């Protein structure tokens, strides 16, 4: 890293740590992460999609997919696509990108971002991609069409589709052939049999208003839903039973992610992170049945995408341009994260 890069890194670190300390204390528990550094993005517009494959950070911004090295903060490569990047995910060494105008899938080589192949999609604009690596199933969601389609992860061929009723939010797959889609119209989680893409029913989210975000622990079989009324619910997916609730930030733009042992020691066996509403908050998983609120980190800029890198316990946030500043990637972690 250049001297200027180091200076920027130190500057950002001081800034974000100060922000952490000075920010309003909204929960007794201390949020375990601090700002490590941030990367200003050269392209215009907000980041629409973000993925971490364990080594590099893949960013979809406007019509460009870029690859960043997390340690040097340098852009390794980028690829312009004809259209707007709506979602992306990694599939066995390939980056699958959902692009609109026209709607299609682009399959890129993970390191070089070389376009391997394309697959035309329907007329609707894609909203989200989820790859279930255990079941080897790829799902694409079209929120404007209220539809979820299962795709062949290698070719992008549509294998089945289900139309749902209501406003759809984040998706999560259980690795065993079931897909969950949070439904903010019905305050519920729609359950889809992924093999046939049939609607199996809905899990109600009681006292949860307009849920938008959803994540899943496929081992513990827990669903984590974030509600716009400042509640996060932990649901036993086998029973559809909400057994715990935690206060989180209010917000209609929440997104959720779960990771096993993002920090490991000190009682952490996993973490659930909710981003949006001007903050990122955490719930610590102490066991499959015991969870604890783990604080909140206020954010000064709107987050447009986020991802978690479980092996190193790092959160990546993509923040929107603001006050003349371009979009940026913020990296949150602990000193331990850096060592590892």
């Amino acid at each position, binding site marked *: 890293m250049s001297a200027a890069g180091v200076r920027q890194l130190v500057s950002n670190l001081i800034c974000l740590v100060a922000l952490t300390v000075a920010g309003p204390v909204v929960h007794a528990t201390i949020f375990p992460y601090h700002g490590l550094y941030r990367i200003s993005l050269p392209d215009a517009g907000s980041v629409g999609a973000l993925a971490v494959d364990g080594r590099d950070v893949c960013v979809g911004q406007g019509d460009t997919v870029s690859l960043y090295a997390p340690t040097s903060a340098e852009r390794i490569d980028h690829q312009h696509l004809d259209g707007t990047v709506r979602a992306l995910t990694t599939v066995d060494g390939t980056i699958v990108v959902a692009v609109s105008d026209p709607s299609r899938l682009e399959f890129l080589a993970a390191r070089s971002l070389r376009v391997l192949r394309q697959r035309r999609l329907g007329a609707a604009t894609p909203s989200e991609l989820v790859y279930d690596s255990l079941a080897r199933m790829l799902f694409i969601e079209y929120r404007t069409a209220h539809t979820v389609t299962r795709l062949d992860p290698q070719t992008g061929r549509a294998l089945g589709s289900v139309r749902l009723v209501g406003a759809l939010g984040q998706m999560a797959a259980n690795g065993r052939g079931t897909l969950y889609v949070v439904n903010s119209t019905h305050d519920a*989680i729609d359950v889809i049999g992924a093999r046939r893409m049939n609607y199996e029913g809905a899990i109600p989210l009681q006292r949860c208003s307009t849920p938008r975000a959803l994540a899943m622990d496929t081992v513990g079989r827990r669903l984590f839903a974030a509600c716009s009324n400042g509640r996060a619910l932990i649901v036993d997916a086998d*029973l559809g039973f909400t*057994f715990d609730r935690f206060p989180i930030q209010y917000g209609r733009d929440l997104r959720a992610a779960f990771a096993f042992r993002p920090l490991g020691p000190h009682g952490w066996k996993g973490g659930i992170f909710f981003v949006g509403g001007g903050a990122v908050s955490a719930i610590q998983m102490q066991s*499959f049945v015991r969870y604890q609120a783990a604080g909140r980190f206020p954010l000064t800029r709107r987050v447009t995408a986020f991802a978690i890198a479980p092996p190193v316990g790092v959160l990546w946030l993509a923040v929107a341009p603001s006050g003349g500043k371009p979009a940026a990637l913020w990296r949150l972690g602990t000193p331990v994260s850096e060592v590892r």
Partner: protein
Amino acid sequence: MNGLFSKLSTRVLLIWLASVLISQGYAALQPWPKLAGKAVLFVTGGITSPKPNDDAAVARHLRNLGFVVRTVNAAAPQAAADGAALIVISSTANAHELGKKFADMPIPIFTWNTFDYPNLGMTGPVLHRDFGVIDPVQQYADSFAVLYGFGANITSEISRAVGLKPQLFGTLYLEPETAGWGRPGPGGTVIADFFGSRRYAAVFTYEREATLENGRTAPARRVGFYLGNDDFHLLTAVYGPPAADPNLRQWAIGLKLFDSALQWAVSPPPPEPVYDPEALDTALRRAARGMKVLYVERVNGGEGRRSDAHIVAHLRRLGFEVKVVDQTAPQSVARGMNLIMISSTCSKWKLANKYVDAPIPLISLEGLLSDTLHFTGRDRYTDYGEHGEILESDDPPENYLDIVGAWSPMAAGLKPGLMKFTYHPGVLKWAWPLPDATVIATLPNEPREDAIFGYPKGARMADGFIAPARRALLPLDNSSYDDMTPQGKVLFDAMVLWAIHR
């Protein structure tokens, strides 16, 4: 004229009550819409409540069910319950502060305040023996065990509403948790239990007029529930596609059990039976028309021969068609019968397992058949036994019974407490039936030795046996029938009427 009309009307009403109510052990649950708007007094610990607790969630749930909830703390005066249709007591209320102020109130009580059970007379006073609370700090292993309840009773209104089966179910969601248990008195009904023993009741009830552990009678319905301070949100339930699995639906029934028990508590109890031998006699005569009784005895058996003859004569006088057979007759003789009555003159050994599975109501006058007939377990002198048999019992002869199930039509309107069953002390048999049985009378000073009880059809009996029809014990020694008091004979008739009712 008016007086005569009034008397006639009353008599008709009593006959109707005797004939109709005797057939029904429990009144039906009031539908939820009819319970909406009823006032509930919710007693908590207020600002002194241990934290965390689920009192707010419970209050919200009660409101969602349609109740008008008023929350008070344990120090609130008794008058706070005026106008309430139900008192709900949380474990967060200090039992010593609660004292006995609600004990005698004729208002139903639903409580998970385990330490308050003795105040209400629902259990004895001794911690760990009569009641207890399992918590993850003091009893870590047991706090996992209380995640599993057992459907001890499958025929009560609560059990039917829940679809309770004689199997384990999930009480609370997965975490080692705090839960209370109690050992109810002889008039109590265990709905669900812990640790594989009905001595550790997780959910238990007292019908109005049932005898409490302290010998008093319940002034209104009482329910004890296993919850701890912050367990309510962990009461099991299943939602969404997993609810399509019937096994899961029968497993995750904690919340349903809570709601059904609450519903039962606030529903009106059945009318109190009135002691009126004439009305009972009339009702029985009506019911007896066209009914056939198989009377099984030791024909020409010597002792008891006269009593057997008198019982048969009494049944025939009531209008029953009675067929008398010897104990050695094959079970096929019961075909077409409406009631089997087994005399105490029968030899348990010779009778073998006959009539056990007969899909016909059965009354045994012989208590020693209790294991054969699956009324109870097979441990003689522990599960069943006798008083007054010189060579077979250490207990003296007895002629009184203690009525503990006065609320039941089987008790014929007799008041709770001691009643003279026979004129002279003699042999009285007893058994300790399973929770599905309704216990009417125990032996005096022996609250676990039940003399008169009945199992409804479909009840879970001992050895996993399911009652193919009503089953009852009414212990008469060989010659006791001729020595019965009028009250004793009324009990006999009430039992017959209960048993034959379709």
